[in-house]
């Protein structure tokens, strides 16, 4: 038995690093960060338990490795509109939207959540692995606007509280009325005694929940983390690592930078075109997207379910029925809640119809799989 492990030279730590280690979390390097992948079985965790807790109860995640860029000033909206493919003019104060920053060729700098915090005040929440690149991109491409661009990534500890019981848990710790906050809206309130904390009803688990932003000093971060876990005892709350975060987002078909989206994949291919607002007269990448719409795509993102025994993994080749290579898996894993082996893959449009039969090459053998509807998992609507 051997598992390949790479130890990079420079690894960053969140303010909660010592807490994860003291809980016995298995740590891995992720995009330059030393992060918990899962918590030990001895305290009732492990990827499957963590995943199931979020689907059926509540789990909490340290997502402080995510980055934050604030744009504020009289032309902040114009700056965001220039950078973002979605239409930020539609955002009310306190509202958020999913979007992406694009290169002129219509491919991804990153995907982002754009929050409108005030009249001329926007917060972009970005990926860990693209922090510096994103900040340079935003900074360099907004020089012409009267707006201040601040990199706030290191100012926040970001904790995600996710699952059907997330609101009940967080409500115990804040005076803000969370039931009044709709999905993809934010509020501010006192949280664990800290005044005016930002809390957004967002997440990366395809489940209900909040992401909270608190000061990034270790003492405060540890206190809040522990208070959330303690308040969550009655809901059997577990801490969750990046392993469960990945399987949860995969079941929900939420894209991961470097996998489903990258600087070599355009928005049409990724199937995220519902977030493109071509009625906006201008944004970086718009012209290329218009052109790509007319030309059509060579590959498209599909959901696969393994029919025969085998687990598709990131990077595995996708073959047609006769064994010819037609595409590749971007993310593949067992799906703990669905209890199936699922994958996202790029294939040519002629193989993308629901029900199409393909094979995934696993250890030099074609294993039967089928194109299925996505998202694989959709959370039940509240009655």
């Amino acid at each position: 038995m051997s598992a390949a492990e790479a130890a990079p030279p420079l690894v960053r730590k969140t303010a909660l690093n010592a807490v994860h280690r003291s809980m016995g979390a298995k740590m891995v390097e992720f995009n330059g960060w030393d992060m918990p992948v899962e918590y030990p079985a001895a305290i009732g965790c492990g990827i499957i338990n963590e995943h199931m807790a979020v689907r059926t109860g509540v789990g909490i995640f340290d997502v402080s490795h995510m980055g934050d860029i604030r744009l504020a000033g009289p032309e902040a909206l114009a700056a965001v509109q220039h950078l973002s493919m979605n239409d930020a003019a539609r955002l009310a104060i306190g509202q958020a939207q999913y979007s992406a920053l694009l290169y002129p060729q219509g491919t991804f700098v990153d995907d982002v959540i754009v929050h409108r915090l005030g009249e001329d005040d926007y917060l972009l929440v970005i990926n860990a692995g693209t922090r510096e690149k994103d900040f340079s991109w935003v900074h360099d491409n907004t020089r012409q606007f009267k707006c201040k661009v601040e990199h706030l990534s290191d100012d926040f500890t970001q904790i995600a509280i996710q699952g059907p019981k997330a609101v009940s848990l967080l409500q115990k710790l804040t005076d803000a009325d969370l039931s009044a906050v709709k999905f993809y809206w934010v509020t501010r309130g006192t949280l664990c005694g800290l005044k005016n904390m930002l809390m957004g009803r967002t997440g990366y688990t395809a489940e209900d929940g909040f992401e909270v932003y608190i000061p990034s000093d270790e003492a405060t971060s540890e206190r809040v983390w522990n208070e959330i876990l303690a308040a969550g005892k009655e809901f059997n709350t577990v801490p969750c690592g990046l392993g469960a975060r990945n399987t949860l987002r995969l079941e929900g078909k939420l894209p991961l930078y470097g996998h489903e989206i990258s600087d070599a994949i355009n928005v049409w291919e990724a199937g995220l075109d519902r977030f493109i607002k071509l009625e906006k007269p201008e944004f970086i990448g718009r012209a290329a997207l218009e052109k790509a719409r007319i030309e059509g795509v060579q590959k498209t993102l599909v959901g696969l379910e393994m029919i025969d025994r085998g687990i598709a993994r990131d990077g595995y080749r996708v073959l047609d029925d006769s064994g010819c290579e037609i595409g590749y898996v971007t993310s593949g894993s067992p799906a703990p809640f669905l209890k199936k082996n699922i994958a996202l893959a790029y294939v040519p449009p002629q193989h993308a119809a629901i029900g199409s039969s393909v094979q995934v090459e696993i250890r030099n053998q074609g294993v039967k799989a089928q194109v299925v509807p996505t998202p694989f998992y959709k959370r039940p609507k509240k009655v």
Partner: protein
Amino acid sequence: MSYPPDRKYTKEHEWITAEGTIGITNYAQESLGDIVFVDLPKVGAEITAGKTFGTVESVKAVSDLYAPASGTVTAVNGDLATSPEKVNKDAHGSWMVKVKLKDPAELNALLSAADYEKFASEEAGH
């Protein structure tokens, strides 16, 4: 976790008894996490010391199984095809394959329980 002294161990984290029964160690199952898939050779297959003979997969990782010794597979634990999580629950009780050893003396080169325990704790410390 103690390692039973009735068998030998490899640096790739397999165990093997004198009779040729093979499994993975508790340290291995712990490092892998939730095991969801075990791919083993068929009865009659030849395995070669130091070469891969199967695969074990957790939710997150794929790992090769390396043969602690050479021989012919005489039995495969079919239970693990439907309940691979048994390896997490009891790694030293969940055998994977039984092998008719080609040369039982090959086992002499493997680690004792005490030596393996030391090796595993050093590896965990890294």
